[in-house]
C-alpha cells in the first residue's frame, strides 16, 4: 500500500517534470503556467472559503499586493527574485494579519462586504498613487526572475520551460503544505468551524485563531502567486485588484470542489483551458462559458472533485473513507 503510494507520487512528479517536453506548443505551455499560478491563488482561497467557510472577497488584494511588492522591489531597488518573492509573501501575509484582525470577528455577509471593501480600497490606492504605483498605466517591464547565487553566479529565467519549473517548485511544496495542514487536527478545526461554529467553540476550538491561520496562509499563497504572475507577465496594472480576478478564482475554487485538496488545482486547470478553447467560437465565447458554468452549478454544486470521488467509490463499492 505504502509502496503503491510512493510509486504513484514518483510517477506524478516524473510526469510533471516531463510535461514541457510533451507540450510542443509554447502557447499550451503558457496556459499550463497560468493554470499553475491560479492553482496557487485558489488553494489559498480554498483554505478560508472551502475549509473555514468564510467567503473572502479580499483575495485579489493579497494577489495584487504580492504582484506590486515584487514589481516595485525589482524595478526600483533592483532586488533579486528570491528577495522579491519572499517580500511579496511577507507583505501579503502582513496585510492578511491586519485585515484578518479587523474582519475575522465578523461573520458571513459582514465579512464578505468588509473584505470586498478592502480590495476596493487597495485598488483605489494603486490607481491614484501615481508616483508610487504608476497609476492606471501600471508598471511595465517587470524583469523576469533573476538573481545571484553563491557558487553558481548570476542566473536568469527567460524561457517558458524554465518558468514552468520555477512555478512548479513553488506550487508543489505549497500543495504539500495544504495537504498536511488539512489532514491534521488544524484542518479538522477548520472544518468544525465551518460545520457548526458554536459547537466547535464549545469544545475549545478558538474560532478567531483558526480562521486567522487559514486567512493568513491563504494571503501568503496569494502573495506568492502575485509575485510569480508579475515576473511572468512582465506588466501589472491596478487591474490585478479588480473583481474580475476574484470571480475567476471563485469559479475555479467552487467548480473544482470547495473544501477538497485537489479541487482548486483541477478547477484552475479546467477554467484556464476552457475559456481558451472557446476562442474558436469567438463572439459566442462568453455566453457559452456562462452556460457551462450554470449547467455545472445545477448538476454538480459540490464541484468536480467530490463528484468524481463519489463515482469512483460507487464503482468500487467502497464505504466512505474517513481521515
Amino acid at each position: 500500500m505504502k509502496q503503491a503510494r510512493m510509486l504513484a507520487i514518483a510517477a506524478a512528479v516524473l510526469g510533471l517534470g516531463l510535461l514541457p517536453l510533451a507540450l510542443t506548443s509554447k502557447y499550451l505551455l503558457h496556459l499550463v503556467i497560468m493554470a499553475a499560478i491560479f492553482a496557487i491563488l485558489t488553494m489559498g482561497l480554498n483554505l478560508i472559503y472551502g475549509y473555514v467557510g468564510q467567503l473572502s472577497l479580499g483575495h485579489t488584494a493579497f494577489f495584487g499586493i504580492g504582484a506590486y511588492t515584487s514589481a516595485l522591489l525589482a524595478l526600483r531597488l533592483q532586488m533579486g527574485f528570491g528577495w522579491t518573492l519572499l517580500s511579496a509573501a511577507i507583505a501579503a501575509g502582513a496585510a492578511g494579519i491586519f485585515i484578518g484582525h479587523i474582519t475575522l470577528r465578523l461573520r458571513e455577509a459582514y465579512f464578505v462586504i468588509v473584505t470586498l471593501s478592502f480590495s476596493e480600497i487597495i485598488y483605489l490606492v494603486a490607481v491614484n498613487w501615481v508616483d508610487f504605483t504608476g497609476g492606471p498605466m501600471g508598471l511595465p517591464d517587470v524583469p523576469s526572475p533573476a538573481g545571484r547565487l553563491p557558487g553558481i553566479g548570476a542566473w536568469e529565467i527567460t524561457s517558458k520551460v524554465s518558468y514552468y519549473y520555477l512555478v512548479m517548485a513553488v506550487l508543489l511544496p505549497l500543495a504539500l503544505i495544504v495537504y498536511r495542514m488539512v489532514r491534521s487536527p488544524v484542518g479538522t478545526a477548520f472544518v468544525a468551524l465551518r460545520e457548526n461554529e458554536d459547537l466547535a467553540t464549545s469544545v475549545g476550538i478558538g474560532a478567531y485563531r483558526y480562521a486567522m491561520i487559514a486567512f493568513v496562509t491563504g494571503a501568503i499563497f496569494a502573495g506568492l502567486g502575485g509575485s510569480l504572475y508579475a515576473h511572468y507577465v512582465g506588466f501589472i496594472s491596478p487591474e490585478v485588484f479588480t473583481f474580475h480576478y476574484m470571480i475567476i478564482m471563485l469559479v475555479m475554487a467552487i467548480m473544482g470542489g470547495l473544501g477538497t485538496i485537489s479541487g482548486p488545482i483541477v478547477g484552475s486547470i479546467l477554467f484556464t483551458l476552457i475559456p481558451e478553447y472557446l476562442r474558436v467560437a469567438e463572439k459566442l465565447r462568453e455566453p457559452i462559458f456562462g452556460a457551462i458554468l450554470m449547467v455545472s452549478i445545477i448538476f454538480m454544486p459540490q464541484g468536480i472533485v467530490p463528484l468524481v470521488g463519489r463515482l469512483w467509490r460507487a464503482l468500487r463499492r467502497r464505504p466512505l473513507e474517513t481521515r
Partner: protein
Amino acid sequence: MRLVEVQDLSICFGGLWAVRDLALTLDEREILGVIGPNGAGKTTFFNLISGFLKPTRGRLLFRDQDITGLEPYRIAKLGIVRTFQSTKVFPNLTVLQGVRAGCHQRVHSSWKDIIFRSRAFREEDRRIAAEALALLEFTGLAARRDALAKDLSYGEQRLLEVAVALGAQPKVLLLDEPAAGMNPDETNRMVDLVTRIRAQGIAVMLVEHNMYMVMGISDRVVCLNYGQKIAEGTPQEIRCHRDVVDAYLGQGAACA
C-alpha cells in the same frame, strides 16, 4: 471538593433579569439537576457558565479561579464543556470525524510536527483516533462511526453530542435537556450514559424536564423560576417543596 462556584450571577436583557442573584455550587463527581418552568433562565444560566453570554454582574469560579467573562473556547479548555438544547452536530462530518474534532484539546503537535509529519505527530494522531473510537464505544455509536452526522437519528445525534463533548475531556459537563424528545428507551440509555460519565469522575449539571431522569440520577436539584433560585435540595426535598410544586411540578405531583 468544590469545582464550580456561582456567586450572585445576574444578567439583564433590556430591563428583564433572565438570571438574578443566582448562587450555587457544584462539587466534584456530583450530578446537579437544574429544573424550572420554561423561561426560568436555565439555558441562559448554561450560556453564562460556558461563556456564551457575559453576566451583567456576579462571578463564576472554577476551582477557585475566576472565569467570569472568559471566551467560551477558553472556558471549554479549562474543563467546562456544554451541549446544546437545540441539537448541534457537525452535519457533514462522519461520526468519527466529529468526535475527533471534539478531541481538539488533546492535540499537542506543533505546526512543525504537522507540516513535517514527525513521529510524535503520527503517534499522537493514532492515539487520538483510538481515543475517539473508545468514546464511540462508550456512547454506543461505534457501529455508526462512518455515517454522516446529519444522517443519524435524533436520538443518535444527541448521543453524538455527548461523545463530542466528552472528547474535550471535561471536568464539568453541562447537559442541556439531553433527553428532550426521546422515547423511554432512549431516555434510559441517556440515564445510563450520564451515570457512567459521573463514574469516570466528571461532574454533571443537568437541565432537564424529564422528572424521571432528573430525580432519578441527581444528587442535588436546584429549581429556578423567573431567573431566581426558589429551592435547592435532594430530589426528595425538591419534590415536596411547596414553591417548586406551585411554580413547576403542579399539585398532582407525587410527594412521598
